[in-house]
Each structure stands twice: as C-alpha cells, then as structure tokens.
C-alpha cells in the first residue's frame, strides 16, 4: 500500500451479486448511492440468479445477493450464507408483441389463436411458471412453439419477428421499448414476481452492505427501480 493512499479517504469495495435483469437498474442505483457515500465502490457481478447462488454456495466473495426469484435466495439461506432477506422489488407480466402489434393481440385469450406463433419461458423457470399461472387464471390453453430458457430469449424471438407473441416481465418490455410493444394483462389474471435481497455471510463491511439494501427500499431507491419498470415490493 502506497503512502499516498492513506491521505485520500479509505475506499471500501462492496461486491453485489445480482440477477442480470437488474443490470441497468442497479448500475443507476449504485451511482446514486455513491453520490452520498463517496467511500464506497461497487463491484457488480451480474449473471443468472442460479449461477450466482451456485457461486455463493461455493465460496464466492459476495457482500450482497439480489436474486430475481425466491427459490435461488432460498438456496443461499439453506446453506446458511445469508439471513432475513428483504423483498425490494416486484415485477408484473405483460404480453410482448412486435412493434405495432401486427397480429392485433388484445389479451391472453388471443394467444390461443392458431395463427399466432407463441413462445413462453420454460415451465421450470420463474417467468414460464408465472406465465402458465396467468394463462390458467384466464382459462386459456396455449401451445407455445418453444419453451425458452429465460425471458430474454422470449423477448428476442418476439423482437426479431420469429414469434408473434410472448409473455415477459414489464421491465423487459420497458427495456426493449424500441423493438417490442407490451399488451397489458389485467390485475385479475396478473402474477407477481418478487425480488429478494440479503447481506451475504462473511461480507467485508456488513454494515455498508446493509445500507445499500436500506437505500434500495427507501423512496429514492424505489423511484429509480420504478423508472425501469419494477413495481413496489
């Protein structure tokens, strides 16, 4: 350590493992947080929530874990590597259609039309499971041509015109607004995904990590998240 380092205020690294759908929102939130906490530098490790959970249970040096679903957070809790997670955001479903909605899809019921090429996420991934629940609530039996591995793949198929419709999160439609349009799903058919966050055991500065979680759930944090399409917890 060079002597000059001691003159500037000590910088603390906070390593945040977060689901990749949070990439842009957390980058913005991190910037905002460091405006008031200049001693903090964020290191983000974005990836699929399951990869992150596997990394953490195998000893990865994470301070904070923000999962895009509750199951992967549960794995970390089960391994005794985190306690008392807090839900800091939630997400709702929307039907994604190509810009201009050429097939004139108005709601879930249209997804059963034979002229519609429909893609969903696989039933084992959260978005797919929620989509099936929503379709069930609407009493619709749909036949997807593909059960995509994740929401992004669903969105890709729609934005490239390979599929006429897919069921994704509101945040996804928002981030791809240039290429797809969203068709809202009414509240009675809606399914809500929850995003839990927790401090990981062994964090270098658990207090600072906790402050970031507090910030996310604070009004300022929620405002930034809302800007990317997330709903309140």
């Amino acid at each position, binding site marked *: 350590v060079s002597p000059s380092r001691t003159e500037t205020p000590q910088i603390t690294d906070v390593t945040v493992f977060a689901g990749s759908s949070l990439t842009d929102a957390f980058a913005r939130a991190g910037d905002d947080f460091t405006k008031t906490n200049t001693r903090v530098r964020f290191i983000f490790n974005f990836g*699929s*929530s*399951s*990869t992150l959970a*596997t990394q953490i249970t195998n000893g990865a040096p994470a301070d904070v874990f923000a999962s895009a679903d509750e*199951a992967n957070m549960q794995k970390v809790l089960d391994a005794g590597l985190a306690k008392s997670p807090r839900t800091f955001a939630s997400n709702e479903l929307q039907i994604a259609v190509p810009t201009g909605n050429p097939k004139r899809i108005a709601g879930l019921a249209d997804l059963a039309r034979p002229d519609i*090429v429909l*893609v969903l996420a*696989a039933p*084992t*991934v*959260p978005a797919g499971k929620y989509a099936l629940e929503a379709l069930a609530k609407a009493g619709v039996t749909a036949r*997807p*041509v*593909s*059960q*995509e*591995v*994740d929401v992004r*793949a669903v969105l*890709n*198929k729609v934005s*490239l*015109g*390979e599929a006429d419709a897919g069921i994704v999160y509101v945040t996804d439609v928002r981030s791809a607004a240039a290429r797809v349009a969203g068709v809202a799903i009414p509240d009675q058919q809606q399914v809500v995904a929850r995003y839990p966050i927790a401090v990981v055991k062994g964090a270098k500065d658990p207090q600072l990590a906790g402050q970031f979680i507090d910030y996310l759930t604070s009004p300022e944090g929620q405002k930034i998240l809302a800007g990317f399409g997330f709903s309140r917890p």
Partner: protein
Amino acid sequence: MSSERPPALLAALAIVGVAFFILPLAGLLARAPWQSALGELTTPEALTALRLSFVISLAATALALLLGVPLAWIYARVPFRGRDLIRALTTLPMILPPVVGGVALLFAFGRRGLFGQALDAIGIRLPFTTFGAILAATFVAMPLLVLTVEAGLRSMDRRYEDAARTLGAGRWIVFRRVTLPLIAPSVFAGAVLCWARALGEFGATITFAGNLPGTTQTLPLAVYIALETRPEVAIMLSVVLLAVSLAILVAMRDRYLRAF
C-alpha cells in the same frame, strides 16, 4: 518402434494436463446428488432429450463432413484471391458467442432473415424445428472440422496424388481413394471434435431453434433449464450426457486414428 518412454518433462506436463481435466470431472461426480436425483434421469423427458441430442449432433457432424471436407480441400489446394479472408470468416463462428451466433442465424434464415424470407415464401421454416437445431449445431461445430482437415491435407505427401493420376485416376477418384484415406486420422479427429462440440452446443440452438421438448430440446438445453431451479438435476443430467459420450468415445478407440 510403436512404444516409447517419454522425456521426463513431457511426461510431467502431460500429467498436469490430464489432472486439469480429471479434477473437475471428479468434482462433478463427487458432488453429484446420486440418490436424490437418480429418479429424474429416467423420466421420459430426459430420455427424449438424450435421444434428440444424439440425433442432432450426429446429423450436424454428417452435414459438416459433407460440406466441410470439400471446403478444407479447396482451402488447402486451390489458391484464389481472398482465400485467407474466406478461411478466416469460416473460423469466426467459433469466436462468436453462441447466442449471438444464433441471432446471426436468425438474421440469415429466420422468418425475416436475408435468406429466410425466400424460404418462408416457399413454406420452409427452419427456426423451432429439429432441422433448425441441426443447422445451429453445424454452424458452431463445423469450423473445427474444416480447420483440422485442412491441416491434415497440408501435411500429407501430395506426390501420392501425382502417382494416382498417372495411373489414370481422375480428380474425384484421387480424392476418394487416395486423399481421403491418407488424411483419415485428421478427418476422424475433426469429426470427433465437431461431434463433441455439437453435442454440447446450447447457445446458438436455444436462440435459433428454441427449446421444445421432443423437437429441439437437447440435453444441454434441459441441463441449462434445470440449472435455473434444480441444479442437482442439471448435474445428474450432465453426468448422464458424459457417461454416454464417454462410452461412445471409448468404443471408437483409436481405430481410425491409427496410421498405416
């Protein structure tokens, strides 16, 4: 002559090399949840995915052999302007992140693709079909075959081809009866590499062909999806994939790799 004691340094490096491969595989086996997840493996879905994996990877290898061996021959034998560029282009699908490769395939052969629009017009759709999955696997795996075969062609003694021609063999007979047998070890190595890559292929397939059980859901896709929610099942599926592949690789032995 056929057996040899290796130089010590070589042997030491080789042992490190083997260990580097074996340790992770051992880790996988050690941590695999044998009891709890064994039941998942014999589900019809897993078996279908396994079968589909082999169908698709073998078909991709066949297609790569059909197109790739001629391509390698041209690269090795016919000097033409821009050959270096074209050869380099052929290597790029390996460098392209597979998911982007899938996007590129959609741009070319998708419903709105450069070439796909024409196909769509005559009622041929490639995405979301088994054939689409084969194309995706071929796209990422064929470069391996092309480069390996080209190296083989370049290091063979071409005077055997001269001798064959003075015996009245036209180019095609020379190719089939002299060139191909002489580079058999390289073709075989290239085919194994290509098959292995196609078998493990996932990113381009999911993007171009989607993931529909029984049609395009290969075992790596099933693994990937399982990883999301039930990693222990994913690991067990991978172990199955490895076990079957291992059996095949061992069965083939070094029969075709053997020189004369």
